[in-house]
């Protein structure tokens, strides 16, 4: 196991991951690495595309902040085939969103190596900034967060993370596992043919091997499952503050349409229409169509939503979109026994069908 080699030089899991990424780039297995890295200011950690091995220093995928769902960045990065190999170091929700995008044919993954890792969850960016701003030792903040994650998730952790049960990256090409591994050890495991080919010789074992890992994961899953809501009983009230700013659509990694039918010009908003609508209903809320907007998004994204909660973080009106999307999506996905991003082989629910199914929705 990697944990035993060079232990004297390594102090944290972060550094172990750093070392693995350094070798990956240095040994020419990939030409560039997309990975969260601490910015010069010291506070914010966000995805950085690194092509020079020495610049791997300072990367910190475990830092408890997610500025964007990095699947959006991957989508932008490999929107067309490239002849360089790129490793993207992604949180499990980002891995799953990326796999959905591959299935939706929104990115070209021939030269993409998806590296996932055990995710300790994140704070909402405001809470994170508040917590880290005055800290001397920024790295210790990450370590403390990992400790909190293993012992019960802090109150300030993003709601979507507090109920997330997909915190291991089982569908990535390569998986960096550390839960249940003695720190600063990590286990690097290839999970796909491509992963084996591209990281040959760097794998350090079967991540499912340690029983303590299985037990720890089981415990975390159980406590998080308890936090999941089974229903939303007041959607209309919850979305009342919506100003239809489109932020949730903009940050959603899976909202991929080049032309959106919810755009104001597509919706045909003219002065005359507003007035005739106000006349018909006696009065009309402005901006209009917020419920239409959210229900449409739920219908369009629900089957692929990975519940990353980035929509909730982007909402200026603090609408609990992460919880809303999670509850709706779970019900929609269960219709088709579909888990987004679980596997590249599962067919997208709306591109396939069974002849004998769902007769309950036919009104005959």
């Amino acid at each position, binding site marked *: 196991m990697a944990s035993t080699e060079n232990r004297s030089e390594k102090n944290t899991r972060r550094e172990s991951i750093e070392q693995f990424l350094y070798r990956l780039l240095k040994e020419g297995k990939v030409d560039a690495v997309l990975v969260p890295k601490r910015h010069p200011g010291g506070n914010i950690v966000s995805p950085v595309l690194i092509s020079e091995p020495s610049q791997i220093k300072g990367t910190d995928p475990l830092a408890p902040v997610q500025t964007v769902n990095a699947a959006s960045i991957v989508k932008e990065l490999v929107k067309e085939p490239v002849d360089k190999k790129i490793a993207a170091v992604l949180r499990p929700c980002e891995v799953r969103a990326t796999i959905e995008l591959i299935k939706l044919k929104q990115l070209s993954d021939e030269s993409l190596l998806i590296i996932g890792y055990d995710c300790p969850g994140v704070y909402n960016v405001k809470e994170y900034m508040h917590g880290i701003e005055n800290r001397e030792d920024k790295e210790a903040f990450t370590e403390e967060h990992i400790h909190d994650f293993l012992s019960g998730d802090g109150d300030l952790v993003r709601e979507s993370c507090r109920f997330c049960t997909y915190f291991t990256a089982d569908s990535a090409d390569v998986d960096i596992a550390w839960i249940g591994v003695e720190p600063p050890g990590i286990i690097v495991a290839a999970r796909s043919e491509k992963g084996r080919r591209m990281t040959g010789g760097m794998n350090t074992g079967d991540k499912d091997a340690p029983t303590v890992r299985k037990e720890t994961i089981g415990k975390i899953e159980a406590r998080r499952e308890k936090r999941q809501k089974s*229903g*939303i*009983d*007041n*959607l*209309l009230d919850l979305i*009342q503050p919506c100003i239809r700013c489109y932020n949730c659509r903009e940050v959603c990694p899976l909202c991929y349409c080049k032309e959106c*039918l*919810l755009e104001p010009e597509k919706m045909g908003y003219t002065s005359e229409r507003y007035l005739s*609508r106000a006349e*018909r*209903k*006696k*009065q*009309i*809320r402005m901006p209009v*169509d*917020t*419920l*239409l907007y959210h*229900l*449409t998004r*739920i*219908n*369009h994204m*629900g*089957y692929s939503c990975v519940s990353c909660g980035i929509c909730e973080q982007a909402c200026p009106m603090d609408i609990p979109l992460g919880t809303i999307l999670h*509850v*709706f999506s779970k*019900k*929609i996905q269960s*219709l*088709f026994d579909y888990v987004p991003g679980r596997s590249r082989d599962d067919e997208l*629910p*709306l*591109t396939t*069908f*069974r*002849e004998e*199914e*769902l007769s309950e*929705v*036919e*009104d*005959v």
Partner: protein
Amino acid sequence: MEQKEGSMDKENRAFEPKIIAFLCNWCTYAGADLAGVSRIQYPSNIRIIRLMCSGALDPTYVIKSLLEGADGVLIGGCHPGDCHYISGNFKARRRVAVLKTSLKEAGLEPERVWLRWISASEGAYFAKTVEEMVLHLKRLGPNPLNSMWAI
């Protein structure tokens, strides 16, 4: 959809529901046409929008119809196996399942949305469907969303 007359109150008896129908070009729309040319009488509560395929219907149009106050939405497609585009109707059924699931979870009324397979030769069945749906909606009463302005 068997309905009992008895439970309908006076107000609802007078109420004439408005139905928006999204009908596929090859089957249900032709069925509606046949009902017309055969001079079959059916309620005039329905407003028909023709689509090339039931599978081409984006759920947003159904949602918009309901939010804007339509009392019911009828989605008509070809019988299973008869789709002009081979499987559009099966895919429509999946979309409708997603739509109804989301309406239910949102506390709206999924029973206002009907999906029916009506072929081009089933003019009488189309007329019967409209009759049934009008009766069903009269029992259900006016769409409460029609008087909600803060949505």
